[in-house]
Structures are given as C-alpha cells and as structure tokens.
C-alpha cells in the first residue's frame, strides 16, 4: 500500500492534522512554511491545515511533471486507462469515507456527497474506456497509393483549477480525460476543499499512477493559480469557477495562446407551462433550486410560469420549501446543508434584499 496523505499528515497537540502538497510522488511542505485551515461549514470545526503554496512550489511541481511527461506519453493509452480503472475502483471502495469527508468540508448533504463521489467513479470508468477508443479518422486519400489518417496526441501538461461545489466530481471530470490522453497534471483545488482534493490524490497514488504524473499544490488563486496560468510549460488550463476569475484567466491564457476550457456562471431557468404536471414541476424545481443549497452551476434560480398556473405553483413551492429541513449534512434527515462559508452567506442575503427591492 502506498504511503498516504492521511498516514503522513502530522497531527498537532490539538488533533488538527497538517496535510501536504504532492510533488514527484512525495508528500511535501510548501516553501512558504505557512499553512491555512479548512473548516466544516456546519460547525466551524477545523478539518486540517493545508500548505499555503507559492510560485516556487508551482515551479517544483512543473519540473516534476515535465520530467514524468515523456514516460507518461509513451505509456500506451489502454495502459493509462488501467490506472484510471484502478482509481475508479478505489473511489468505489472508499465511497462512504469520501462522501463523509466531503460533507464535513463543504456542507452538502450526505446523499448528494455520495452522488458527487459517484460522478467521479463514473467519469474514471468512462475515461478508462477511452484508453481503448480515442478514435481518430482513417479516410481515403484523393491520390492513389496514399494513406490518410488523423490521430489525437496529448497537449502535454494540464493545469487543473477546480471549485469547492463538486470537490471530487469536477477534479475527476478534468483529470481523467487529461490523464488518459497522456497529459501530466498539476492540480490546484479550491482553498475551501483542500481535504477532498488530498483524498483524491491519495487514491490516484494508490492506483499506481507514476510519480510526477499527478501533482497537487494547495494555496490561493492569486499565488498558485496565477503561477499555473502563467507557466509557459503548462499548455492547457481547465478552470471551473466564477466568471470574473475565468475572464482574467482567459486574458492571460490568450496572450500565451494556451488551450483553455472554462466553465463559469449560470442563470438557469425552469419553464412551467399551464399544461404541466405541477406536482412534478414542484419536485423538479425544489431539487434544482435547493439541492446543494443552490450552489450548483446548474442550480435553477428563475422559474418562468404561464400566468394561469402561477398561484397554484407558488402555493405548492411555498408549502414544500417550508418543509425542508436545514442542518448538518451528515444528518440523513437534513434536506439542505449550510452554505460553504461566511462570504457566501452574506452574498445570498444581499440578493434576497436586491430581489425584494426589485419586487
């Protein structure tokens, strides 16, 4: 069994473990000598201390990944896929432990946390299969005695910058296709969910992914995220998060002609027509609006209703919304967990005021 972050986390006198970066297959400290805390939004408990990464840490992770890159690219794609199968199976074996850690760190109710882990498992297995597909085209040439085809090859090095709202699914959405196609990875998770990220990387290591192929550096967007975006060796950036940060990344990545995948804001709407099944619509709206406490990028925040059924729908929504139980997501009776942190609470409260003032 590979040495794990949990096993190597140093526990201080007050039982708060300290976690590490993962660079070149080793769990290591930041050059900053500083850490930050991740807290449980339901009760404020400190989950752990995490390395406050620096530009120098990113540079070390980049050299480690760059050194591993030729070996990983030459590993046949079906073999790369086998590492992903093993990782997906390890996630499945550890599903409950991962889900509980997620609820503790970012608050979503335990049933949804299990779903988040399951999404990670699903994409790991899907992308593992891509190792044996990864189709290109073989087409006829317009000239005799000439062969024509096209193939995919890895860009080389992926910088993965992820949010806290799907702290296991989204990193897997990004890392699994990056890895199976032969890219090395530098992963910077949200500072609200570094523990979830550490647990994932621990399982990637346990799955046998060679040292240097996946590297984890925790810390702020301003320090670690910017260093990733601006590093010339990192050819592709995948970012999910706010529109504001996405625009800033796009400007800098554009200047360097990097490949960039952005998943930013939403303002998702549900249309309810007069001929709709209103009970079904109520179920769908409540799940979409209040699941994960409204903190999904696909969360519904607008309901567009044909006038004849406005009152009936509102009545149903109000009575059902009042029945939702708020609380700690680890309690299976809880319908809606806490918002992720204090700034999120302030932001939501301010929009309730805006909504009232706009009528």
């Amino acid at each position, binding site marked *: 069994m590979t040495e794990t972050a949990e096993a190597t986390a140093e526990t201080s006198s007050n039982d708060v473990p300290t976690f590490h970066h993962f660079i070149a297959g080793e769990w290591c400290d930041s050059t900053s000598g500083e850490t930050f805390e991740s807290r449980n939004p339901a009760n404020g408990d400190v989950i752990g201390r995490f390395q406050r990464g620096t530009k120098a840490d990113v540079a070390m992770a980049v050299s480690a990944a760059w050194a591993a890159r030729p070996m990983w690219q030459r590993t046949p794609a079906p073999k790369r896929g086998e590492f992903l199968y093993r990782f997906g199976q390890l996630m499945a074996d550890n599903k409950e432990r991962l889900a509980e850690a997620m609820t503790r760190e970012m608050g979503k109710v335990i049933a949804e946390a299990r779903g988040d882990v399951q999404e990670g498992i699903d994409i790991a297995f899907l992308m593992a299969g891509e190792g044996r597909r*990864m189709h290109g085209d073989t087409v006829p040439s317009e000239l005799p005695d000439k062969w024509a085809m096209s193939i995919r090859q890895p860009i080389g090095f992926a910088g993965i910058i992820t949010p806290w709202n799907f702290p296991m699914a989204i990193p897997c959405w990004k890392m699994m296709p990056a890895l199976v196609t032969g890219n090395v990875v530098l992963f910077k998770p949200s500072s609200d969910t570094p523990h979830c990220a550490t647990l994932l990387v621990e399982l990637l290591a346990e799955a046998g992914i060679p040292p240097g192929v996946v590297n984890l550096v925790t810390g702020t967007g301003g320090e670690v995220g910017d260093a990733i975006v601006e590093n010339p060796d990192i050819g592709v950036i995948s970012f999910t998060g706010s529109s504001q940060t996405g625009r800033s990344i796009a400007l800098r990545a554009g200047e360097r002609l990097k490949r960039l995948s952005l998943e930013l804001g939403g*303002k998702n709407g*549900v249309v309810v027509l007069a001929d709709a099944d209103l009970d079904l619509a109520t179920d769908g709206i409540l*799940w979409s609006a209040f699941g994960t406490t409204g903190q999904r990028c696909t969360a519904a925040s607008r309901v567009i209703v044909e006038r004849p059924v406005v009152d009936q729908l509102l009545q149903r929504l109000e009575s059902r919304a009042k029945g939702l139980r708020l609380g700690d997501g680890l309690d299976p009776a809880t319908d809606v967990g806490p*918002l992720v942190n204090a700034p999120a609470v302030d932001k939501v409260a301010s929009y309730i005021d805006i*909504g009232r003032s706009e009528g």
Partner: protein
Amino acid sequence: MDRIGQEEIFGPVLSIIPVADYNEAMMALNQTRYGLSSSIFTSDVNTAFRAMRDFETGIVYVNAGTTGAEVHLPFGGWKETGNGHREAGNIALDTYTEWKSIYVDFSGRLQRAQIDNQA
C-alpha cells in the same frame, strides 16, 4: 432585466417570472448572458420539441429540473457560461489533445495534391 433575474446568486434563491405563453417564456429564458442549463415542464410533445430547439443552453431538460447531468454526455454552456469547450462525454478529449493528420505515400513517386489528380 433586473439584477435578481440576471446575476448568478449561487445560493437557494428563486425568482418567479409570470409570462403569457410559450413564446414569452422562451424569450425570458434566453434573456440572460449565461447559457448552461434549462428545463421545461409541459405535457405537450410539440412544445417540448420547440423548447429543445429554442432554448439557448448547453443542457436542456424536459419534465425534469435543471440538474442531473450524466458523465457520458457533453457538459457545458453557451454564451458567457464558457468558451465553447465541453467537459464529460468523449468530447472532453478535445480539451486535452492536439490533432495530427498523417499522410503516407506508398506510390514511390512524387504525387502533388490538388494538382496531379485534376483533369
């Protein structure tokens, strides 16, 4: 449109927008700078297909809410939700790969594309 109907809140807050008919609903739905997910509840199959055609989002649900993506279909949004790339599905490979077109000429002579094969 006002701020509550336009800006992402990222919390459990819903605004209700009454409309006269499908066309007005579709226009209201599309009247945002984002385009990730949308849904329509209706019992009329023709209207459902109109929505599938008209809604300017990367994901459309019929008779289900706006959440519930599965990993083997493309996930991502139109307009300012993103920059055109998709996650999940086999299209996710596009983000992380370059294409290489390869020509192998086994005729043993110079063959000029667009020239030697023309009448």
